[in-house]
């Protein structure tokens, strides 16, 4: 094999490798983080009023063969009496609807087969009266894209 042939063969191998990698590449991105969610009102006799944020979006790029699932979880439990839910709209597959977030990942969208672009992420914060006053704090929400052939 000549030197030129070896270069061509090497180039073909590299190209093939990159194609394989590119085919496996699907990613989920988000448009940012929601603004602060503050519960500060109630109707007398009822639980404090929930607060909703629906201003952020997510995109699933270049899904290829098989299907994809998006799971969601938070990095630490919510305070007692306080719940954070998430709902992802989707143009492919099925949304799980409103899902209460915990430290264990849960499906929020399943069966994604095609690109999903700029679909809404909706967060809702609920608190019972027994939760008391909760000082400002944060939770990191992780959305994970999983290939489910």
């Amino acid at each position, binding site marked *: 094999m000549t*030197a030129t042939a070896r270069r061509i063969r*090497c180039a073909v*191998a*590299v190209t093939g*490798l*990159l194609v394989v*990698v*590119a085919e496996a*590449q*699907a*990613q*989920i*991105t*988000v448009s*940012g*983080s*929601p*603004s*602060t*969610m*503050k*519960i*500060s*009102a*109630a*109707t*007398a*006799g*009822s*639980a*404090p009023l929930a*607060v909703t944020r629906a201003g*952020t979006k*997510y995109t699933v790029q270049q899904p290829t063969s098989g299907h994809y699932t998006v799971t969601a979880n*938070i990095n630490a439990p919510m305070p007692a009496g*306080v719940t*954070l839910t998430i709902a992802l709209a989707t143009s492919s597959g099925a949304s799980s609807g409103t899902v209460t977030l915990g430290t264990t990942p849960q499906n929020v969208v399943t069966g994604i087969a095609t690109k999903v672009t700029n679909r809404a*992420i909706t*967060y809702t*914060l609920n*608190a*019972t*009266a*027994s*939760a*008391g*006053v*909760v*000082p*400002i*704090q*944060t*939770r*990191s*929400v*992780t*959305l*994970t*894209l*999983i290939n489910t052939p």
Partner: protein
Amino acid sequence: MKTVSFLSISTLVAMAAASFASAQTATQTVTFQVSAINQIAVTGAPSLVINTAVAGSPLTSATSAGNTWSVTTNQSGASITASIPSAMPAGLTLSANLVAPAGATSTGLTALGTTAVNVVTGITKLSAASLGLTYQLDATAAAGVVASGTRVVTYTITGGV
């Protein structure tokens, strides 16, 4: 030459793998808080008329049941006070009795005046609706005939921590 090619391929694979791995998750930071919440509401528009007596006894009191009150607080040890904007005519007493929610204490039938007085104490982190609220009007014979009048009763939830 072969060594260079090998390194190039390895580098590409590593870069691609890194890209693949980092693309699998996305994160958002959710910032939240719950402020102090104290809400009270009442229903009903009671009308109280004293127009009878048992001979030899004080005038028969008038009562108005069927009113309700509701409360939501996420604080501890809150109290409900009540007051009226102007004093009652001489010889007339307007009182209120609020049924306490679980864990709290009612002061029972309590005379109302222009100075706020406790009617329920020790309300802690709860929401309770449609609790009983009763008004009572008492008059002495010395009060005489009193023309129709109104008083706005103001309930305030205070003191929680």
